[in-house]
């Protein structure tokens, strides 16, 4: 399976080198591409000096625009799988082989979850996460412990959807839409690290707005989207496990 790791980066000069170094040590044989989302700092220079593969967006498109750029690259270069990977060192590269294992079993999306075997802590942000989980559960019947996790691996037909369709975001509401259309989703336990430096796309102030937008989108908007039903391509996945 040819895997592309997509690393969106916006002003990550402080940690990008360390993160890519760590990534190269852990998975030296995996293709990756950095999508520089119009950073105003040294992100592009550092990557070019080190010879890392990088696509430079001339303007800031936001996480969705940057990620879709990577998906288009994956689509045009006929990759079989694509993984969204944070440039700030939160995602563990060591788990990548396990993601691939489940994708090979026939799952369409594998999500790296913090809360499959671990318990969810109680905090305001986790309350938001719970509300999104609940919205996905009542609209799709699928229980996701960590819907906002950004570490997701997609198979070939998901890459095609992301590269060619409108309104495809690397966000929980799009995942719920894809589940409704028949995509098979698997959550696996990963341990996320604290970010090395810089600030997240989601500041605490914005997370409330984010939570509201995603929940309304899942409950009211996503169900009215069109799109043909996806059928499982491999039968090796146990459908029963899917609904648990």
């Amino acid at each position, binding site marked *: 399976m040819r895997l592309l790791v997509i690393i969106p980066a916006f002003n990550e000069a402080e940690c990008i080198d360390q993160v890519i170094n760590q990534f190269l040590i852990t998975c030296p044989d995996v293709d990756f591409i950095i999508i520089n989302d119009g950073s105003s700092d040294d992100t592009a220079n550092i990557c070019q000096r080190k010879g890392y593969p990088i696509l430079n967006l001339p303007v800031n498109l936001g996480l969705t625009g940057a990620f879709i750029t990577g998906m288009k690259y994956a689509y045009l270069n006929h990759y079989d799988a694509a993984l969204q990977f944070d440039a700030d060192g939160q995602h563990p590269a060591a788990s990548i082989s396990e993601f691939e294992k489940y994708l090979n079993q026939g799952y369409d999306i594998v999500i790296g979850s913090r809360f499959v075997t671990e318990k969810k802590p109680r905090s305001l942000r986790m309350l938001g996460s719970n509300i999104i989980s609940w919205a996905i559960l009542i609209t799709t019947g699928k229980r996701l412990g960590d819907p906002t996790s950004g570490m997701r691996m997609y198979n070939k037909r998901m890459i095609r959807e992301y590269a060619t369709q409108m309104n495809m*975001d690397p966000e929980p509401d799009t995942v719920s839409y894809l589940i409704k259309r028949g995509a098979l989703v698997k959550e696996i336990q990963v341990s996320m690290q604290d970010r090395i430096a810089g600030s997240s796309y989601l500041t605490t102030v914005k997370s409330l707005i984010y939570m509201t*937008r995603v929940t309304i989108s899942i409950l009211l908007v996503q169900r009215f989207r*069109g799109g043909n039903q996806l059928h499982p391509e491999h039968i090796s996945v146990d459908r029963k496990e899917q609904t648990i």
Partner: protein
Amino acid sequence: MTLALRLFLFIGAVLTLLLFLVQIRKKRLKIQYAIFWTFFSFFLVILSIFPTILVFFSKLLGVQSPANLLFVLTIFVLVLKLFQDTLKLSSLEHKLMTLAQEFALLKYDKHNRDE
């Protein structure tokens, strides 16, 4: 509020909802924008079903007619939305200009290299 106004509001709100649902299906509307219009038309539907909400607030604020309060609120929300759209438009114009310039520079580079 008269029954005619309630009916008018209700039909208007339902039509707004239908309009954006059709546009999402046709893949011409981005969801982030659809959400505002969902809210807006839901709000109108609720007001047309329970106009006492409007009556209560118009008495509280001393507005003579509930319909006037509805107009003021609607205009206010739409002005805010228009302003937000203007902000977005400015940012889009800037991005479009940057993209066109980058594209021209790239073409110039490529042309010079080819010769």
